[in-house]
């Protein structure tokens, strides 16, 4: 909180997402869980923001509130100044477990959004083709998700929200279940897509390296209850080389920040990972 910086110096900072003093408590018979407390966050149009933190610190909850799948217990969450009321096509969520419609082909999955927003058949086909090509799946248009690899499924999920004309891409550890090579490839592709479309992306991860490779800005979260610890801007030139010295300087810096904020019980496992 203390050392927040506003990044995106080269771009005019139009706030697309504003979160103010947000709390989230899950009520249940077994006891209430406060997942988020006093969260403030502003994201500008076109920014690539990573939410970084150990598991259980409320990253998914925050993302789901932005997506409109959960409501805040108190505080405000606004898109372009108006309160978020439920899920909508302006915010496209990419789930870790893909959440593709298994009974639809690759093409039909991507066409799902445009079709349900009442676009004409021709428009839908055009948009679908465009994004199917962007994620390199034109050859698999008639394949069902069951027959696709994890990486391909996630490409379909990304194309599906792109075709839906989302302004903000919400991604919840989308590459965590993929092998390292596929993950690196998809990170690269995602950056290419981001550069072409200039979407705003909020990307949840627990990997420091992934956050430094991808984002303009890393929002470090802490647990007990979930809150934002620090907000670090990443001013490395793109494309970024994970083997370069500046990259490693930033990575070390972020790792240190993360480490100094996590609870002692979590510290050991986090150290092993970093």
């Amino acid at each position, binding site marked *: 909180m203390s050392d927040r910086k506003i990044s995106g110096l080269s771009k005019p900072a139009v706030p697309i997402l504003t979160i103010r003093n947000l709390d989230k408590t899950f009520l249940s018979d077994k006891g209430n869980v406060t997942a988020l407390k006093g969260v403030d966050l502003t994201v500008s149009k076109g920014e690539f923001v990573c939410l970084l933190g150990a598991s259980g610190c409320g990253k998914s909850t925050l993302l789901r509130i932005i997506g*409109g799948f959960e409501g805040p217990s108190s505080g405000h969450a606004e898109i372009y100044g108006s309160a978020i009321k439920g899920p*909508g096509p302006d915010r496209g*969520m990419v789930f870790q477990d893909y*959440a593709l419609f298994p*009974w*639809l082909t690759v093409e039909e999955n991507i066409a799902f959004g445009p079709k*349900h927003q009442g676009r004409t058949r021709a428009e839908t086909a055009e948009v679908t083709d465009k994004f199917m090509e962007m994620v390199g799946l034109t050859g698999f248009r008639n394949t*069902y998700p069951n027959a696709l690899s994890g990486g391909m499924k996630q490409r379909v999920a990304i194309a*599906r*929200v792109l075709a839906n004309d989302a302004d903000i891409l919400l991604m919840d550890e989308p590459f965590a279940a993929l092998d390292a090579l596929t993950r690196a490839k998809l990170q690269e592709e995602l950056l290419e897509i981001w550069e072409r479309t200039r979407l705003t992306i909020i990307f949840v991860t627990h990997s420091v390296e992934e956050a430094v490779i991808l984002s303009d800005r890393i929002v470090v979260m802490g647990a007990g209850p979930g809150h934002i610890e620090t907000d670090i801007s990443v001013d490395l030139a793109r494309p970024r080389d994970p083997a370069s010295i500046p990259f490693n300087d930033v990575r070390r810096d972020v790792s240190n920040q993360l480490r100094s904020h996590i609870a002692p019980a979590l510290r050991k496992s986090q150290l092993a990972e970093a």
Partner: protein
Amino acid sequence: MSIQELTPSPTPSASQQAQSDKAAQSVQLLSSATRRKINKVALGAIVPVCLILLWELGVRWTGTRLIPPPYQVAVMMWDFAFGGIYDDAFSASLPTHFWVSVQRVYGGFLLAVVLAVPLGLMIGRFPLLKAMLDPTLSLLRPVPVTAWLPLSMIFFGLGPKSAIFLVFLGAFYPILLNTIFGVKSVDDKLFEAAAMLGCNGSQLFRSVVIPAATPQIFNGLRLGLGFAWILIVVGEMTGVPEGLGAVIMDGRTLSRTDLVITGMIVIGITGFLSDRLIVLANNYLLKWSPQHHV
């Protein structure tokens, strides 16, 4: 095999060996699909052939006159289907009885589908409806369909309507329960994904709920149709003049066991074939999920 093909063989005998292996393999490749099919049919035929043999031997050894030997039943089946042997009331009457029963089975079954599938979708989706209907449905469900027979005869009289009602009752519950279960087991993430993509309200039924629940709905349809064929016999024992169940009843009163067994075999085969039809539809509509293929 592939290693043999890749490595150059030093001696003529080895190469000869490889060649003959290759020939054998190509023969096998050509016919492997058909061979597998034949194998499957042959395996499936072992038990029925043994049963018929046992039947024949049993009739001979005991010298019973109550049960006809298989050959006599075969003759009866021929006469029932095409006539020209006994020339009695049942000769060449199979098409009539068959058609009447098929109409009743599918009439009752379709009625059950039309009511149970939408109701199951709604109950699965709306907790309020579930809270309202679940107690009633749970109380009615354990009552055996045959226990409805007297009441159904009072409601619908002695006739086809009564039979259709019993078939309907028997098919209704498996379809309803499986549909509810299918809706319940739809992954919540799919609803979230649909909502995010702008699919809401009644669109959700067509675009998410129904396709996602299709595997379980088909499970219910198969069970329901199975029960329908079982219950048609009960339904047609209530004194209707035509139908496969009526034929079995007549056979009993006339002490014509060959007719009874013929009726049983025809029902078995028809029930099997109508299950195959559902399986075909199942595999076509669920081509996205090989694990649900039958």
